[in-house]
């Protein structure tokens, strides 16, 4: 690890100010990606701004048809939350399946979404449920937020404060975990909402999370697993690595999507 200046602000405003003032500052939420990167000397930020003491970023609540989760809420708290379990049980299950207990007790929803790892679970929920990302500056729709792997619409001095998930009629997330890392080789979130069916896929896309529009159309017409028969996701544009070829990932998307639909109905 290289040396850096460490800040521990108590408010969003102070955190944003510290970030803006730093030459090359980085926010630390749970640190699940950043800290290992620093330890391996693969990054050398000038400043680390730790959000752990910003209380206004924590907590889970409900607002007129939406579930709102503070950016610094850890996965274990989302998984265990009665509110989440009641309103969007698929989201609680997704959070409960991230990494391992250590990760779930440190890693945060805001950190995961801001990092936009192409194999992370939360981006599938944010995009699949059509959530809104609230920042210290504005609200960003999920469809505009994810802009390719590890890339988001966030500006350099912008930080996520809350994520608002519209409560769907039904939703399910089914993932095929990498046996080593527990990241998603393929993760599919299917949501049946007032505005139609949304299908978001993580783990597979070379540009990160994406929506499977052909599946969405088929499911809007007939919300059943068999509606997905014959829909082949092309393997072009999918990731291929030592754990799964793009061809296998394409196949898994079909299998996981059907299982997610089955879990909804």
């Amino acid at each position, binding site marked *: 690890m290289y040396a850096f200046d460490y800040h521990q602000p108590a408010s969003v405003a102070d955190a944003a100010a510290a970030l803006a003032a730093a030459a090359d500052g980085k926010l630390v939420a749970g640190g699940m990606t950043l800290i290992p990167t620093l330890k*391996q*000397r693969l990054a050398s930020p000038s400043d680390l701004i730790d959000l752990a003491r910003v209380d206004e970023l924590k907590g889970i609540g409900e607002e007129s048809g939406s579930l709102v989760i503070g950016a610094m809420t850890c996965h274990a708290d989302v998984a265990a939350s009665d509110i989440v379990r009641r309103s969007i049980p698929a989201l609680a299950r997704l959070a409960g399946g991230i990494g391992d207990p250590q990760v779930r007790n440190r890693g945060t929803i805001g950190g995961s979404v801001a990092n936009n790892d192409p194999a992370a679970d939360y981006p599938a929920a944010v995009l699949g449920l059509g959530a809104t990302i609230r920042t210290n500056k504005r609200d960003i729709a999920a469809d505009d937020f994810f802009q390719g792997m590890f890339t988001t619409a966030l500006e350099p001095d912008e930080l996520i404060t809350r994520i608002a998930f519209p409560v769907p009629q039904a939703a399910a997330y089914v993932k*095929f975990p990498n046996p*080593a*890392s527990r990241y998603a080789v393929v993760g599919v979130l299917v949501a049946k909402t007032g505005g139609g069916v949304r299908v978001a896929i993580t783990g597979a896309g070379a540009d990160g999370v994406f929506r499977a529009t052909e599946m969405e159309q088929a499911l809007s017409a007939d919300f059943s697993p068999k509606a997905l028969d014959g829909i082949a996701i092309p393997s072009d544009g999918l990731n291929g690595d*030592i*754990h*799964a070829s793009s061809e*296998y990932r394409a196949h*898994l998307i079909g299998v996981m999507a059907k299982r997610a639909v089955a879990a909804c109905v």
Partner: protein
Amino acid sequence: MLSDGIGAPLRRKEDRRFLTGKGHYTDDINRPGQTYAYFLRSPHAHARIRGIDKTAAEAAPGVLAVLTGEDLAADGIGGLICGWMIHSKDGSPMKAGPHPALAQGKVRYVGDHVAVVIAETLNQAKDAAELIEVDYEVLPAVVSTAEARTSPVRVHDDIPANTVFEWELGNKAETEAAFSRAHHVTRIDLVNNRLIPNAIEPRAAVGEYDSGMDTFTLYTTSQNPHVARLVLSAFVGLAPEHKLRVIAPDVGGGFGSKIFIYAEETVCAWAAKKVGRPVKWTAERSEAFLADAHGRDHVTHAELALDQDGRILGMRVHTTANLGAYLSTFSSCVPTYLYAPLLSGQYAIPAIYAEVDGVYTNTAPVDAYRGAGRPEATYVVERLVETAARELGMDPAELRRRNFIRPDQYPYQTPVIMTYDCGNYEASLSEALRLVDYENYPRRKAESEARGRLRGIGFSCYIEACGLAPSAAVGSLGAGVGLWESAKIRFNPTGNVLVYTGSHSHGQGHETTFAQLIASQLGVPTEQVEVIHGDTEKTPFGMGTYGSRSLAVGGSALYKAAEKIIAKGRKIAAHLMEAAEADIEFKDGKFTVAGTDRSKTIQEIAFAAYVPHNFPAGVEPGLEESAFYDPLNFTFPAGCQICEVEVDPDTGVVEIVNFVAVDDFGKIINPMIVEGQVHGGIAQGIGQALLENCVYDPESGQLLTGSFMDYSMPRAHDLPSFKVGMTITENPSNPLGVKGCGEAGAIAAPAAVMNAVTDAIGVNDLQMPASPERVWQALQRGRMAQAAE
């Protein structure tokens, strides 16, 4: 008999300190004035070093020294050695390339040690290492086992075709003749996947030099501190043996990877004298992935000849074994003498011929890993036999039964060196069939299929050669050392006992098992026996702990030392009770005059020995004895594992739903520890079969599985609850009747799992690890083949 002696499932004495965080590992050791070492490692798989500019690094804050291979050479420090000579078919000795502790002229794998920085803090050492400028001429690399011999790349410039040896065992002509008579020949191509050991404690070392005494002390994570001292003295030339102390304190697992004498530990000891301060190094997990010796990595073609009744007539095997970029300490014997002599398995096979080519590649050295050669042999034999049964339409249990060596055939001479001394393979197979409920398997299979799952069952009837080994025998096969053990037992005046062993415990539970053994033999409570190991200045010489040898060899040395204690005690007791020595009986800790009620406890005798006011003439005071034991034979633990799996045909995911292991380890000292060893071994074997795989990029030679994010270790949820059973034939070749239990699980499990998976999917051509994608692809191939028919 003591309630906590031999046969008692006593909780491990050592676990109190481990479970309460009071273990004392190498990284816990901090010496006054200590400095820190950081190794600059090669980023290239293969490169010539044109030059190293260390000026800037030497001037960096906190730096005491920046040392390279040139400095090693200038000090006359020799290279690391391989301690077992293998001769090729043509009689030529194996070709061992130089193995300097810091690179000299070339780097040969990603992670190879180029230079070391010694600094006041670890961070300063890392900072300085970034300032070292190495001028590399990057060369093409070869990492593939199968392509090593035909690649134009030469890992060592003067070793053609990257070939270390072309070795053979068995009778080629007789084997060819057996195949010419065969009714059926089964052929199979197998890859035994490369594994990264990953003991929970990474390697570590603290080197210290005392200029007043001119002595070195090396604290290190070693399975065999005496062997480390011997090699560092006799071959590396660090210091004479009497001026070097090696201490291996608590060690958190080894699985073979801590047998070897590595570059980093060697450099820490050497550098301690150069900088005049203690030097500490603890591997980071990333370094462990890169630079610990890896395991397995075979590519094999094997054939089995059978007659019309399913009797095996002969076996021939060709294996290419990847030994990595350098020959590690025992690397050459693993794919040769620890492998091919096990190819007879549990079967009476009249003719066997095996060829093994050892090859260099631009990968980390490969050496012994739990089972070392024997898992590879078992995998070949058991996949061949299972495949033969399928091809002949026979029950796999029945085909095995038909070919088992029978209990009345011992001692049984195989065509590949070994003389099996005892066993009962039918007994362990029958018990395993009972535990797995083989009778009702068809019902379970139908039930799985009703749920859309493919169910398969697979067998693995293994044998291993443990208890290494008669020194004369291994010497004749090329070993550079003898493989005896030694022990010392000291009664203290107050009647408790110190047991000193040359073997080393790093998870095996010696402190409990050895205490139980001695407690039973000498009739003292187990809690009053303390076992001391791991320090060359405290303990008698030992060859170390590996190959499931500690109890069979080290335990037998303890037994002999205890017999000497009893013999001396008898003399003292006879004198004190005014009886003839021949009339003294010893039982349950008491010396009794035969036919009387006159007796003395062994504690009373011990006190008398240290306070010899009334003592037999000509007998030395004190009660302390030592013994050396050189085994008469290898030991041959054997048994049967049966695995049942369910495969999800949509994803290729394999779930193990039933797993039975029945082992014959001879006499059991602590059944709970034995069962724990079996569980751990099976977990590692399942890891190899389904999850673990070391992958290098075929072009760049970069390690693609360099962390737990990509290298998949087995976890609790990957494993079922194992059903473990025992059958026992006491070993006639050592005084304890024991065989060893440390490796069996890892040896047998890969074949059992793969036989089950291939049974489930109906496709035999499947390599480890049986990852979901591989299983799914095999299912697609199977469907296509069916459609074509």
